[in-house]
């Protein structure tokens, strides 16, 4: 019945000096005051803190905050053999950047991409931890392929690598795995290829776990209801700043679980409680409470930490009130 879920990243630092350990640690590493192992320990510490803050804010499904990730691309591609990381490129329409991976040889996955991170977070958390991966289509689109010379083959290879990672994650206890595929909304005409790549990936996805396809940086115009053909159990959408998504949901029955991004994580402006209540009620027009999770529309790293905390607490309050009203009724 109606859960409150994290999306992806959490701010790595805050404004108070004690919240800036990670920022300082990078400086300490540069000055050789700590070593790589020391930096890793600090990342563990910051991850612990991010988990704790998410739970305190009332989230019932959390993430490791992607504290180790520089961005959605570099962290994963940097671990896959065959990729070389190159210059900084802008990540969609944000003011953040990623290093473009260039594929120069057969792609080979290491033993794990994020399994250790998941295990670390999962051991610490009192609530379920969602494992996070960037989807094969997006990874391929944001990379440059000089090796396979065929997009479908290149992205297909990534699909296999990510599918095998999902299997490893399930073996160590992951019950929810989210794949972010924002690039699909920028390349809608390529949906047939997207589906082929995802069919390849889905064959590897373990049975009995929740698989989330998260789609932001745009709306589903031109992709709904076809998007429901993708073999995942849940779809995540921006329902805070993409009004077209609401209209589309009304056009055709939504047949999966919905992760509804009701809170805008890219603007500091606070939603009013009325607005959030109204969006929640609206989401319930399309899916039952059992099949609905509420979240921000993006990871929280675009916001200052203090604002991120406030936004989560705000959404959490609305959910609490909704439940209390249900109990009374």
């Amino acid at each position, binding site marked *: 019945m109606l859960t409150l879920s994290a999306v992806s990243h959490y701010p790595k630092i805050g404004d108070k000096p004690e919240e800036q350990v990670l920022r300082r640690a990078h400086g300490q590493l540069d000055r050789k005051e700590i070593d790589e192992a020391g930096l890793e320990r600090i990342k563990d510490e910051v991850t612990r803190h991010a988990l704790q803050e998410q739970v305190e804010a009332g989230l019932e499904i959390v993430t490791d905050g992607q504290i180790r990730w520089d*961005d959605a691309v570099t962290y994963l591609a940097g671990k896959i053999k065959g990729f070389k990381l190159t210059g900084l490129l802008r990540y969609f329409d944000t*003011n953040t*950047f990623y290093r473009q991976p260039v594929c120069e040889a057969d792609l080979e996955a290491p033993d794990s991409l994020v399994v250790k991170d998941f295990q670390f977070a999962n051991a610490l958390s009192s609530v379920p931890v969602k494992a996070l991966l960037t989807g094969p289509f997006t990874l391929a689109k944001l990379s440059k392929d000089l090796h396979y010379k065929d997009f479908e083959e290149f992205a297909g290879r990534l699909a296999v690598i990510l599918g095998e990672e999902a299997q490893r994650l399930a073996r160590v206890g992951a019950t929810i795995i989210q794949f972010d595929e924002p690039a699909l909304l920028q390349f809608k005409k390529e949906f047939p290829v997207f589906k082929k790549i995802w069919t390849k990936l889905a064959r590897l996805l373990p049975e009995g776990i929740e698989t989330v396809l998260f789609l932001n940086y745009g709306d589903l115009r031109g992709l709904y209801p076809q998007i429901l053909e993708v073999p995942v159990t849940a779809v995540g959408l921006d329902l805070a700043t993409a009004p077209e998504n609401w209209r589309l949901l009304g056009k055709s029955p939504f047949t999966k679980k919905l992760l509804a991004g009701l809170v805008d994580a890219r603007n500091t402006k606070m939603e009013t409680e009325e607005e959030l209540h109204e969006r929640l009620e609206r989401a319930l027009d399309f899916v039952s409470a059992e099949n609905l999770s509420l979240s921000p529309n993006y990871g929280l790293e675009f916001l200052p930490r203090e604002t991120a905390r406030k936004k989560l607490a705000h959404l959490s309050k609305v959910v609490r009130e909704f439940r209390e009203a249900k109990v009374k009724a």
Partner: protein
Amino acid sequence: MNLLPTTSVGSFPKPDYLKRARTQASRGEISAKKLRELEERATREWIRFQEEIGIDILVDGEMYRGDMVTYFAETWKGFEISGLVRSYGNRYYRKPVVVDQVKRAKPITLEWFKFAQSLTKKPVKGMLTGPYTVMDWSFNEYYKDRRELTLALAEVVHEEAVDLEKAGAQYIQIDEPAVSVRPEELPLACEAMGIVTQGLKAKTLTHICYGDFQKIYPGMLEIPVDQIDLELSNSDFNLFELIRKTPFTNGLGVVDVHSHRLESKDEVKKRIEQALEVFRPEQIYVDPDCGLKTREVQEAKDKLRVVVEAAREVRKELVASKPVA
């Protein structure tokens, strides 16, 4: 003005003594007056250097600015400055937040412009950040949408441009690095720039970097400025091909001819010569790539020297091959 005049995009690296002083000032260890003295010293040094190597249109180097948006936002009314957000790696910045109607309480760039111009007889460019970029790089808690905020900011930037012109600025650069990020909003950026440059007699320029020109060319030629400064050297694809298909007809192109390493004079010359295949010589101004502030002082100086020498040689060859009638 020379054929192929040389200039730079805007910011230069701050010397170590100034970096130290800025840190000290932020901790309250030195006075604002002391910091100001050092900023003036660094500005003097950069103006002198540009004169020495023979740059035609000078900049003050922005020794007193941090971020190109926050510098304006922290003085304009209607803004607050947020907590820290990350841009990439270990880099964080305080993002401006629009919480009320934006207004200009007083001129922001005027005093430094006058100071820098008083140090040289050559023209110094007035340097502003465009309304579209300020909008895109701020949180908006007040205006209805992106358009409304952009147009409000355009009025404020226009006031600043008018003041610069009154103070004698012959060149005013209004940078819009965010303009290529959302191609569908290019008409908005153009409309806003029209408000900024309306009625100005000074030559107006804008610098465009980071983006995918393919997405906004030739639409970007509609940006109502006299010159568009394009980052050519860091672009992955061949912008020249695009320009060949749809020539630059309105106004002048300024060419960035440097990449992130120090190129030889011959490499820079080759870039300029390539540009001459698609631009008329009088369309071309030559400058190094995107602001040099992230470089070491010596590195930035070397780059500027190479650019000036290369432009000088190409200029000579042009004059020799085509005697002016």
